[in-house]
């Protein structure tokens, strides 16, 4: 790109106007090195969320303490919950000599003070760049008496310069199984279906999965289950380990009767591990957002377990359909721009299409080429999806250009989208992670039939609110 294209633009007004132009969009899409407002975090944050889902598990960052502070802050702000995590506070001397001494001392202190049932160690990029050997270090820490020899420790390599937070979730999940699940004996199963949520910062979603699977009469374990860590009751008492999947059920995971993964892209490695290495009946579904995706989820459960879908869920489905039909005129034909994690986008796109909404721009910073194909297939299956642009590896400054040159009616994404929405003068419906400027959204499910009702309600009412807030007095009326 030529840096002289706009050297003549002096006045701020001119530049502000130019930022909205097709010419600028082209230039913006041609940038190669600069990333502006990327919609992705780094691996260890995902690893942390994953580790929070095991009962009595203390997340432990092997690396700089600043990283741990940042991960905790970000999760605190979205969840409005405590997030216990320690770090072994590596500094310059570790950069020179490696982080083993910090890990040995850190494990000892953490074990004694916070009395965890297990520790999940994951790396920050500093430890990765200097090439710390976690396997050896942890063995040495055990030998040095930092923790008892049989004390469970899972560890994952989570370099921040590879993938994103969803990769980190995946790596930690696989590490939990590899480190702490006894190998499958193959002759028997524990009779339970293991439900794997993937990177999902909605405790409401996790509760919904458990409710739906239980309604099917299927004995299940959610692994990992961060529901309580993400949404613990106020009792006047702080519990550092508010709940989660019991250690015994993690240890027994590879004897499951089946595994169902609720997300595809945040579980790529774990899914392969479970399916190929352990030969367990394993399914992955599209995140059940909307009616069709929820149907497919329940049918997958039915197929895996032979349990029929109960009448109760059929009625619930009917109510969700009713809500969709009641609200469809407010959504049909409206144009949407979406951004977020790949699994979320895949589910949401299916939902919008079934409502007659038109996805116009999909920006997925941490998407892959496979994701592009998968979401294109979803779009191609509906006439409402035919003109949608899918932008993989792009960021929210690309999104801004898209919104300015090809306007839409609504932006859907996390709180970071609020500047885009304001510039484009459209509403933002907050879905995804992190949501830092609204309360309690993460407590309401966006998955399952109830989630579909919630989404329909949020989106339709936002459009209706917008009419009320912007229409002239003569068009201001009681009914909408």
């Amino acid at each position, binding site marked *: 790109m030529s840096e002289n294209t706009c050297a003549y633009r002096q006045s*701020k007004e001119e530049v502000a106007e130019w930022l909205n132009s097709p010419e600028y969009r082209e230039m913006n899409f041609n940038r190669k090195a600069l990333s502006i407002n*990327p919609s992705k*975090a780094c691996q260890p944050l995902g690893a942390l969320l994953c580790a929070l889902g095991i009962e009595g598990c203390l997340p432990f960052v092997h690396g700089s*303490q600043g990283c741990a502070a940042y991960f905790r802050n970000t999760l605190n702000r979205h969840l409005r919950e405590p997030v216990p995590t320690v770090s072994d506070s590596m500094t310059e001397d570790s950069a020179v000599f490696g982080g083993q001494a910090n890990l040995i001392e850190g494990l000892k202190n953490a074990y004694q*003070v916070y009395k965890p049932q297990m520790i999940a160690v994951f790396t920050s990029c500093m430890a990765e760049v200097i090439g710390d050997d976690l396997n050896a270090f942890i063995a040495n820490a055990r030998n040095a008496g930092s923790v008892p020899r049989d004390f469970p420790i899972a560890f994952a390599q989570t370099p*921040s310069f*590879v993938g994103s937070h969803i990769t980190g979730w995946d790596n930690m999940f696989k590490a939990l199984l590899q480190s702490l699940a006894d190998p499958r004996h193959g002759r028997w199963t524990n009779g339970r279906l293991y439900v794997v949520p993937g990177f999902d910062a909605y405790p409401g979603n996790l509760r919904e999965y458990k409710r739906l699977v239980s309604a099917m009469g299927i004995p299940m374990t959610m692994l990992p289950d961060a529901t309580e860590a993400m949404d613990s009751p106020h009792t006047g008492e702080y519990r550092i380990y508010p709940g989660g999947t019991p250690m015994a059920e993690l240890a027994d995971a590879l004897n499951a009767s089946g595994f169902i993964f609720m997300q595809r892209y945040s579980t790529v490695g774990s899914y392969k591990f479970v399916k190929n290495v352990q030969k367990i009946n394993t399914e992955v579904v599209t995140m059940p957002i909307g009616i069709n995706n929820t149907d497919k989820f329940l049918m997958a459960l039915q197929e895996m377990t032979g349990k029929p879908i109960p009448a109760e869920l059929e009625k619930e489905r009917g109510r969700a359909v009713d809500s969709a039909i009641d609200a469809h005129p407010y959504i049909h034909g409206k144009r949407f721009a979406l951004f977020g994690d790949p699994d979320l986008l895949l589910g949401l796109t299916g939902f919008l299409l079934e409502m007659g909404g038109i996805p116009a721009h999909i920006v997925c910073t941490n998407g892959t080429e496979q994701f592009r194909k998968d979401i294109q297939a979803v779009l191609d299956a509906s006439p409402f999806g035919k003109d949608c642009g899918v932008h993989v590896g792009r960021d929210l400054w690309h999104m801004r250009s898209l919104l300015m040159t090809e306007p839409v009616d609504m932006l859907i994404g996390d709180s970071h989208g609020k500047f885009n929405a304001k*510039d484009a003068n459209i509403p933002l419906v907050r879905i995804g992670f992190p949501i830092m400027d609204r309360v309690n959204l993460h407590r309401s499910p966006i998955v399952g039939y109830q989630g579909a009702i919630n989404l329909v309600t949020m989106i339709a009412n936002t459009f209706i609110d917008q009419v009320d807030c912007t229409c002239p007095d003569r068009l201001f009326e009681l009914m909408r």
Partner: protein
Amino acid sequence: MAEQQDLKGYASRAMVDEVLSAYPEKVQKMRAKHITVKEEGCASCSIRSNAKTVPGLMTARGCAFAGAKGVVFGPVKDMVHISHGPVGCGYYSWGNRRNLAEGTLGVDNFVPFQFTSDFTEGDIVYGGDKKLEQLCREVKALFPTVKGISVMSECPVGLIGDDIESVSKRMSKELGIPIVPVRCEGFRGISQSLGHHIANDAIRDHLLAKKERPDPGPYDVSLIGDYNIGGDAWASIKILEEMGLKVRNIWTGDATVEMLQTAHQVKLNLIHCYRSMNYICKHMEEEYGIPWVEFNFFGPTKIKESIRKIAAFFDETIQEKAEAVIAKYDPLMQAVIDKYRPRLEGKKVMLYVGGLRPRHVIGAYEDLGMEVVGTGYEFAHKDDYDRTFPMMGDNTVIYDDVTAFEFEEFVNRMRPDLIGSGIKEKYVFEKMGYPFRQMHSWDYSGPYHAYDGFPIFARDMDIALSSPTWGLAKVPWQKDAKEVRK
């Protein structure tokens, strides 16, 4: 029990030692030096600070990157700040310090942005210098009105040995704007604090005194160490301008590159956050003979003291106006006190924050009849504690880099009425039933500085303490339910 209630809120060395006894012996000894209980008549107690955090213990501390980008450079609005390295550091420091700024996004305000070189494996293997070069060109092309670029290096950049200094120098020449390399890798130092120092040095070397203003005046001052969180700097400027002073620069809330470049021309530097910005004030004093004065704009008592302290540097015109400002706001502040003091009188507060607040806000609490019985800093140095001890009462506890465990245990034993700390502590203490305010970010409220801030501060403390929601925690049908606070 009665005895305990009498002692409520006050600390003793025995309490501290009991809490520390949970640690391994070596850690116990180390941590004991970081915690002190102020004894009667002791003006300056001994406390160890600015030392490494103990590995494996939960700390609230951040890193040099957080200090340099998150605190100092981030609020400079017409500059693009590149988080150079993997995506995370830039992402987590994106928009989270509530630095408000005037301006048009993408034109003369880049504060709400996250610019990063988003390192991938290839960059780690081959180095990021080429990418940085191209990236600077792209910044200038896409944002032609940008006034400067800072290159904030993350851990890997330092570890792989990239030469951001020479790239910055070269690109600065090519693009005709200052490009400032900031060596703030997170592994440097032991907390945010080194990042502040590094950032101050970068400003000194690359920006300060690089430009002359045509119109220096006798009442020109700089407001230093105010990051305009929730509009703090705007509230502070209001007082200073009413005093007749001309605030030419803010460092770095709502700041511009030009402000940093021309700051050597003012008559007086007014410093609020001493910890993060004392370095540059000392430099300007040595190099340009500009005197500097610490002030405190939290709560009417300290504001009044500070106004007079600042006015004393100027002539009678300013001093008269200063008195007029005090006279104008005194009754307004009294009305705030009259409204809230009856509800807040006697309440005990424990603080744990960074920068200036562990001591600066004490006066504001006292104006409301509240007492600070414990305080501590995330990343203070000895000079911060020297400034803090005289403000604390007897039998109060002062803790440096307090761990989550220690803080929770102190609170359990001292049972304060209100806790002021950060987001990482907030939900822990709220779960325990303690009223809480985030004192880094004002809990999404603010401003808290100056006369505009005090009514908001008072209201927010009252909201925290007097909320009927605390009363809901007790389960009414459980007769034996553990009595929760309130």
